[in-house]
């Protein structure tokens, strides 16, 4: 019943002309979200009011490749124009307060400072406590907000790749991770100032996210349609594989609880996963939603944002059949009762089937079917090959072992 009446889609935030490339939530807030797009525009949304707090139309030439909040309402953005710009978003808030009705029209704002770089930047992330931030271009650099040049370069000396994303760990704030075009995942520590370990995988990753509750866990959104969680203490195998997307996964973000995460894919779906459950994610899709380039959880873990190729930022419920608004104690008790009943009877085939089935758009469904067929065929082939080779010559390899090709230090 719930499933039938679930309405996960809440609203759409407009304002970008081109694909929304990146989104970032202001730490310690629930709903202040900045988004950067391919057109070089930068918008700070107030999600709960569905209004714009700040709108900079040409923050960068070319696309804005990375956005993050700094300390004290500062906003950092980097772009492919080889610049990092530091904005004061607080002023924007004030202004928006004034012209709230008009919805904060684009302002000709000048950045507080510009940090020029030598190559196009792909990603930026701010240290949790210190006024430091890291950027990814062909190097991984650490910058100080007060200094115009990078204070250190953490790149592995042998690497020649383009680093596509970089993220600070949330609990162990000085631990840093990056992913690169060389199918690599690299771990850094700004205390030792070194790249510490690198793994090379089968396919490249498109996004990464650190778990907020499990400091050792990092999530990678891979090009091979899967998501992987790694324990950084043991990088040779992923701790879990999440299979479900039917195209490359373009983005991922952990829920603040660390027990769920959201991913957006090239298959035009947003999926919500439970930590440790590798299949059957919740699937969100809309007719008009294009490739999902960025996804984000809100601070209260109730909503999910997705930025897609069509330039919209969409708000979804994290749990499709959640009731919005005030829920009375009685109602909540009833809901909880129902949920625990479902949990109790989930072993039952019928109940489970209902809980499991998702309505998918036809292309996704077909793609999934096709993928399944292909994988089956592959498996069969391998089995036959094994059958016709000498016994014990090629043993089946666990799926998990296949992911990482090499671990380097």
């Amino acid at each position: 019943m719930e499933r039938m009446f679930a309405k996960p889609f809440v609203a759409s935030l407009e304002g970008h002309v081109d694909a929304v490339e990146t989104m970032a939530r202001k730490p310690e807030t629930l709903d202040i979200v900045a988004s950067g797009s391919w057109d070089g525009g930068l918008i700070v949304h107030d999600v709960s009011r569905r209004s714009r707090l700040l709108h900079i139309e040409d923050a960068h030439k070319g696309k804005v490749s990375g956005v993050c909040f700094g300390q004290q309402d500062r906003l950092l953005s980097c772009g492919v124009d080889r610049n990092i710009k530091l904005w004061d978003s607080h002023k924007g808030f004030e202004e928006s307060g004034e012209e709230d009705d008009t919805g904060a029209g684009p302002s000709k704002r000048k950045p507080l400072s510009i940090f020029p770089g030598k190559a196009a930047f792909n990603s930026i992330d701010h240290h949790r406590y210190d006024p430091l931030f890291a950027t990814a271009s062909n190097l991984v650099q650490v910058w100080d907000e007060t200094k115009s040049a990078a204070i250190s370069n953490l790149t592995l000396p042998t690497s020649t790749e383009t680093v596509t994303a970089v993220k600070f760990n949330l609990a162990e704030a000085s631990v840093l991770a990056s992913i690169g075009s060389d199918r690599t995942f690299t771990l850094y520590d700004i205390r030792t100032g070194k790249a510490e370990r690198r793994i090379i995988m089968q396919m490249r990753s498109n996004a990464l996210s650190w778990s907020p509750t499990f400091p050792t866990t990092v999530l990678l959104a891979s090009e091979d349609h899967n998501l992987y969680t790694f324990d950084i203490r043991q990088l040779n195998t992923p701790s879990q594989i999440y299979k479900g997307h039917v195209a490359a996964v373009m983005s991922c973000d952990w829920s603040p609880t660390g027990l769920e995460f959201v991913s957006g894919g090239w298959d035009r779906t947003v999926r919500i996963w439970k930590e440790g459950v590798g299949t059957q994610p919740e699937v969100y899709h809309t007719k008009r939603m294009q490739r999902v380039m960025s996804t984000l959880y809100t601070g209260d873990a109730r909503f999910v944002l997705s930025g897609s190729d069509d330039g919209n930022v969409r708000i979804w419920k994290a749990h499709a059949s959640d009731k919005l608004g005030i829920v009375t104690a009685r109602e909540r008790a009833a809901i909880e009762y129902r949920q625990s009943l479902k949990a109790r009877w989930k072993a039952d085939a019928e109940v489970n089937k209902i809980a499991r089935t998702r309505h998918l758009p036809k292309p996704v469904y077909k793609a999934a079917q096709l993928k399944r067929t292909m994988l089956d065929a592959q498996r069969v082939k391998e089995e036959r090959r094994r059958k016709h080779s000498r016994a014990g010559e090629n043993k089946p390899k666990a799926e998990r072992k296949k992911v990482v090709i090499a671990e380097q230090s």
Partner: protein
Amino acid sequence: MNFARSTFHGGLLQTPPPWLRDAVRDMRARYPNDAFDVVGRLALNPSTGGHVTIFRLVCGDCPGKLLLVMAKGRSSGKGAKSAQSSRKAGNALGYAKRQSLKSKALSPGDVGDVYEYQQEKVRRAKVKLQLEKDELAGVGGAESGSEEEGEGTTSRRRDTRPRLVGENDDDDKIDEDEDEEIDSDGAFDESDEERFAGFSFSHKKKAKSKAKPKKKSDSGRSVRFAEVDLDEDGDGAKSDAQADEASEDSEADEDEDEEEEEGDPSEFIDVLDVLDGRGEPESEDERGKAQREDVQKERASRKTAEADEEDEEMDSDEEAHSEEEDSEEGGDDEDEEMISASEVEEEGDDSALLDLENFVTGLDAGQKRKAPDDEDGKEGEEAKRARKRRLLPERTEAGAENEFIASSGAGKLNLDDLLAPLEGQSSNLQSLKKSAKVLSSSSGKVKTLSAPLPQRAAEKLDREAAYEQTKEEVDKWKATMQRIKEAEHLSFPLQAEPKSRTSNLELAAKFKPTTELESAVDKLLKSAKMRENEIAQTESLKMNHLSVEEVAARRAELAKMRDLMFRAEAKAKRIAKIKSKTYRRLKKKERARLAAKLGEDSEEDLDDEEARLKREVERARERATLRHKNTGKWAKAMRGRGELDEDQRRDINEMLDRGEKLRRKIRGEGESDDDESDDESDDAEGEEGIARIKAKAFDELAALDADQAEVPEGKKGKSIFEMKFMKDAMAREQRKAHEMVDDFIKEMGGHDPDGDEEQGERPDVDGPSGAIVQRVGGRVVYRPGALNTGIRPVGSLASDTSSVTLKSTDLPPEARDTPIEQSASPPSSPIAQRPVPPPAEEVNPWLAQASAAAKAGQTKHEVAISKESGAAEKSKNKLRKRVQKRLEEKEKAQEDAAVDISLSTVMTLSEPGPSKAKAAQTSTSSSAKPASTSAAKGKARASQEDGDDSDSDANSEVEEQEKALAQKGKGKGKANGVKAFEQRDLVALAFAGDNVVQDFAEAKRREIQEDAPKEIDTTLPGWGSWGGKGAKKAPPKPHLVKKVAGVDPTARADYKKAHVIISEKRDKKAAKYLVKDLPYPYTSKAQFERSMEVPLGTEWNTRLGFQRATLPKVVTKIACSCPQQSQLRTPASTLGLPVACVPQHPSTY
């Protein structure tokens, strides 16, 4: 010795000198695997224009590679000798030379010519050149060697020390060499033939030097034993054009560069030491003999080294010589005094100097001839170019004077050797030694500090270490993560801010009046000094004004108040108690009444007609019997007497009253009983209010008092009872009542004093009324005796009594039962006509005995009863059954506990039985006798008095039994008991009637039949076919035959398994809801089932339980951004993960 190749051209060539031969022999001996050869060659001495013979040592194994050159002055007839050595050695040699060159940089330049010659040689093959130089130097500088040595050693020391530390010296040397090279190039052009030149030069030099060498030359033994290794030669061949530098290059090329470079200096120093031993003869053995005091220690050490490796020894020897030569050359011009001085400085040993001198002279006997003029000429040049000169001496010396280094080279140079010279001088030698210890410890091979790793490797290691560090750091979160993972419920934020309770004080302290009202109040308080902080003060102030009496009065007042309050409280408590008591009473009564009504109703429902009839009869009887009317006999008599005294009248009135009451009771409408009415009213009023109830409680108390007051009245009644005319009428009733009382006491355990009271009253007033009331049946409440009948079926009175008697005997059932049976049998046997089929029909054959015995007993018992009325029989039957049942159960239990029952115990058990039974019998018989008599009367009575009859019958029967028991029990009791309680009997009794196997087989057969495939003909006769007379019966139509595809008996899972029934039924509808696999967290089916059995909803759970059961796993506090973890870096200190709470926007969200 093969000198075949040593050619002698035109007499110019000289034969190899004997020392050479000796040397070669030695070499051969030492290197048996190598083929040495000495080749003589004529060379032109450019300076002199004469010819010189050059001897070359050739190795046959490596043709063209090994060329050892020994040059000798023609006239002297001495050849140079070279020995093969390892490549390393060669390099070392070259290096040594360079070093010496450097050291000689400042030495006077009289060797200039020599330098040039050397350069020539260098051009061809640097190694050779060097060697030759050495040789030359050895030859030339022999005389003045000692002095030079002194300097050389010192200077060398100077050089070597830094070398040990840093390697830059190499470069310097190279530079020098280059300079020299250039010069030498220039010089080389002049020369025709290198070697020759070298020799000539050396000769010149020698010649120029003092006369001392001459003496030595006589000896003719001075030999050069220069070793050059193959590679060097190869190098030389390659780099003809190259000068000394080339040697450097070659060194650089080679792998062992470093080693050599480091090794060399030591060798130099070794040489220094060797200096002393230079005078030794060429062969090693000889050298070993020659010993200097100063060097003795080093010698020893060196020798050990020698023992290790001969090759190296050789090298070092050679170098040592070269060094010596260097020093000699450098100090060519210098005086011996200088040398001696230097030596003194060093070692303070003159004898060494002398030896040296001797040695030198001995070496270069033939060189005196060499023209000194040339040398002089060159000297000028040399003086100009200090560097060249520096070079020269070294080179010349290298070849050097020593007569054969092969012998003199003591072995590998040690660090100790290097440090030895310092011993006397430096105070910080010790520290140096210490620091050098590391190096010296690895004495065998030349050990060095390993070079720093290449950058990339080093960085890799760094990274690995850093990763480990990070891992460690991150691992501190392990415990926290584990806790989160295992938690059943997570409530975010995980680290909530501790809630602080705001106290009044806190609020008051914070409070500031903002509104008008508040400020006004505040002002008032302030003026009255009643604010929170001032109030204590004001009160104390007020107290100050009071006098002692006033205070005392106040206190007294307070105390009084307290006292009053306490009293009020106590009162309230009491009232409450009464209230509750009353209430309870009321409740109880109400319940009782309800029960009574119910009983009546049921009774009415059950037997409407009968009951009504009965009631009518009763009424009639009452009317007939009771004294409620003055129509009775007694009343009439009383009336007849006319006058009545007061007592009599009151009695009559009472009687009438009672009659009235009873009548009403019978009608079931009202109760005239005092208690009853009271209760009723209580009940009615109880609903009205608490106040009334209170009053009622008191009323009730009063009423109770009144009741007690009535008791004496009852006693008055007893006085009436004592009257004669009452006695006869009441006698029977009283007896009955007594019985009833007994029964009742037995049944109820002697409670209900009210009942007692009533009983006490009733019999005296009206005996027969009890019987009447009993007949009413439903009115159990009013007659305790009736309770029995209420519980038991009608006509069970007899059994009751019997049971009572049985109980009273207090026998264990088996002990009680069997004797009765046995004893009962003889008297009853004649009467026994109708044996009831025994319940245990099918008994195991091996148990036949016991069952037979049991049967007999039963039949007899039965007979005893059967003669009486049907009802009685029934009751009897029941009783018997019950008893038997109990018996069986008991036995079973016993069997369970211990199958073996020893006979002795049985006997002891059975022993007390009869005696007790007897006692009981006597008691019952006494009471039963009158009953039996009455029973006899009762037979004549109407049939409705069944109960009475049966009762009496039962009594009589029991009596009979008891009598029998009394008769037989004494005689046979024991034997019978033993017989009865045999094991088999017990078992038989326990399993009587269960033929389990057959039952099971039957059940299985039925099961199989049910499941078997069936064909059911559903044809309805007359439908679809002709009916009537003569019609043929149509065959069953296939579509009307319903086939049930069951399970074929042979296909069953339990086919041929006699001991099991496996059901083939499978509920398809239910199957849909069965779980295929055990769900995850459960480990067993039972566990899962149990968890599923427990209901979840509020209907089956307490509120709390429900809440707990339905609590979701993750609870997030809305308006909290739960994310992210603490700033606390030490997870050990964090109990959860802290979260910053931020109020949510009040929004539509």
